């Protein structure tokens, strides 16, 4: 049991923090997120040069062979400055699927290009008629000669319009399969739009669109999808922790400097107590996010353990994110609601993270299913 990062990991954190903090202050972020694709291509390339975009992939697939502890460090720094680059969406989620399911050839091609920053891969999974399920029903895969075609709608797909390659989930015989769709494929229509948190999403319409199965065959991949979603959830928990930390420090600074009634706001206990409660929420969620990452990284963790850890992280992230996000705005007052000031954007991103892959209530419902299967929760497995 060890919650600390080693010196190599800390060096990675410092390098990523340096890059992202130079790239983004609230002004620069606003400018970057105003224009498509909603992030800075140059920063994306710099992250690639640093090896960040290939962190979790095997070296033989063009990656760095690092673990999820490293992913967590990067995600935290992304959250700290609200870097709009789709790190979790592309590297952890879509890349994770390719790494788990893809053939050697697919891995070398897709992960190599993703790691180099030359190809943005995203997972097109959500469908307008359902929510937070590992399965697909709105897009159907049909065999067509030697290949496959996909038909249906995926939405919202993060960075769906900008993506060079889409990993698409689709109904196949016996379950949900995974397919690779090229951005220039025929019968592919992508309608991109801005999202409230400054990033981009798209409606992806497939109409007899040629697709290649991810992996050897178009078989049921529900279990792989669940696992990839769980790992992305844990990475999002760290992104959220980074965001919450900045939301809290920004709020604390504001309480010290903003004067009303002739004194700094920090003289009002009604406000400082609420800031103290934000700190409590932050430390609790940080602990569970770090723990969940250790569960993901532990070589003997079962898929069930990883899924449960992700649900635990998700539940705590949802609660803490809502608490800290809402209080950060309230303790600022009116300026917190403006787009010109930074803190509200943190609340917006925390709200997005909460709803991308499943919120707290959803996680609590899942955890409730197993509540009588154990006397108590073991934090430290034998």
């Amino acid at each position, binding site marked *: 049991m060890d919650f600390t990062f080693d010196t190599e990991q800390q060096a990675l954190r410092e390098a990523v923090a340096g890059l992202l903090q130079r790239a983004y202050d609230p002004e620069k972020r606003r400018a970057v997120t105003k224009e498509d694709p909603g992030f800075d291509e140059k920063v994306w390339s710099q992250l690639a040069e640093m090896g960040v975009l290939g962190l979790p992939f095997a070296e033989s697939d063009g990656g760095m062979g690092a673990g999820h502890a490293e992913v967590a460090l990067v995600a935290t720094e992304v959250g700290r400055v609200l870097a709009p680059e789709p790190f979790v969406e592309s590297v952890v989620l879509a890349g994770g699927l390719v790494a788990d399911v893809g053939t050697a050839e697919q891995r070398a091609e897709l992960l190599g290009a993703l790691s180099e920053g030359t190809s943005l891969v995203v997972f097109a999974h959500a469908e307008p008629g359902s929510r937070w399920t590992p399965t697909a029903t709105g897009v159907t895969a049909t065999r067509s000669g030697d290949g496959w075609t996909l038909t249906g709608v995926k939405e919202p797909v993060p960075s769906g319009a900008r993506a060079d390659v889409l990993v698409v989930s689709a109904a196949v015989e016996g379950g949900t399969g995974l397919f690779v769709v090229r951005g220039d494929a025929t019968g592919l229509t992508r309608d991109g739009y801005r999202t409230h948190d400054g990033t981009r999403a798209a409606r992806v319409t497939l109409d007899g669109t040629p697709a290649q199965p991810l992996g050897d065959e178009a078989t049921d991949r529900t279990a792989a999808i669940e696992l990839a979603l769980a790992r992305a959830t844990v990475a999002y928990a760290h992104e959220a922790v980074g965001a919450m930390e900045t939301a809290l420090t920004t709020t604390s600074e504001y309480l010290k400097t903003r004067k009303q009634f002739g004194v700094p706001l920090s003289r009002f206990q009604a406000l400082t107590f609420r800031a103290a409660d934000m700190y409590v929420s932050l430390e609790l969620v940080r602990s569970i996010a770090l723990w969940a990452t250790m569960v993901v990284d532990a070589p003997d963790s079962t898929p069930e353990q990883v899924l449960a850890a992700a649900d635990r992280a998700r539940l705590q992230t949802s609660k803490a994110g809502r608490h800290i996000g809402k209080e950060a705005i309230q303790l600022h007052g009116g300026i917190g609601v403006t787009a010109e000031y930074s803190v509200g954007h943190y609340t917006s991103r925390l709200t997005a993270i909460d709803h991308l892959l499943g919120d707290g209530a959803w996680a609590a419902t899942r955890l409730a299913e197993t509540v009588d299967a154990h*006397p108590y929760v073991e934090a*430290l497995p034998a």
Partner: protein
Amino acid sequence: MQLHLSPEDQAFRDEMRTFFTTKIPQAIRDDVAAHREVSKESYVQAQRILNEAGLAVPHWPAEWGGRDWTPLQRHIWREEMQLAAVPEPLAFNASMIGPVIAAFGNQEQKERFLPATANLDIWWCQGFSEPDAGSDLASLRTAAVRDGDDWVVNGQKTWTTLGQYADWIFCLVRTDPTAEKKQRGISLLVFPMDTPGVTLRPIELLDGGFEVNEVFFEDVRVPAENLIGEENRGWDYAKFLLGNERVGIARVGATKRMIADAKEHAAQLTSGGRPLIADPSMRTRIAELENELLALELTALRVVSNSSDGKPNPASSVLKLRGSELQQAATELLVDIAGPLSLASFADDADTDVPEWARSATPEYLNYRKVSIYGGSNEVQRTIIAGTILGL
């Protein structure tokens, strides 16, 4: 980053678990688990068994019975003790006055008090709070005036937990009423509870029990040698002591045990034609509580692994604040599961069919309101977090 316990720590945990569940008499552990009043004799018996095995005061300096354990091992020791429903070494002895004497007492005091304190040959009680000095402890007024070789103590203490069992009291007294800062004029005196002029009045609590007392001092003569540390430095020792008090105050193991019990009880009761544990809102409530507790436990583990310099980590305020809230949430859960049965609180065994756990649920819930008040109220903890950590 490493999830698993090392093989050494795993072996250590097994060793603790085995010891606590086999060496401490089952009857004592049953009393703790059932939230019954634990007798003085049981406390003493349990602590002496622990002390004999070197498990009563592991956090003390090695020469006085401490063990060279890592903070993680200390955490495991405490956690396993709570899970096994072992009465913990008396906090007034093991966590409060013992470490203070070890750190600030003179050699004679160490030899006189520390072995007896570890073995619970002396039962200590705490003379800190006063009717007009609660959270604002530094306002205390109990005075000690030097008269020859003695201090003469006059005044009143309150909330003195288990003072009725105590042999000795450690007492904050005002020795310099003229000090510019009120914190500067306080000293720490120790004296026997049977010293002439000491009287004790028990205070009945909402649960019908007597665990706290008022203690009155009228011209109590205390030999000068019973001053711990330096005159007028008592506030520093009190802060040191209260910092220790907050370590382990999260009581995660005890709360885990309550939740585990709650689930068993909920499986036995029928509600709406099915076991209460099958009710989705009950299941969700328990799942959320378990998650909060996991987050707290992991935070405690983070704190212990970062507090090797011996100073209380400011984040220990989080443990006190959240630990008390979750203990209270667990007691509330038990009351809600007991439902109407909880009304039979004071019924004798012969007069009721209501199981003991359901009878004790509400008294325990009411009693546990104390945990967010003692050890520095949760509002004091928020003040510490806002001031020390956030710089507000």
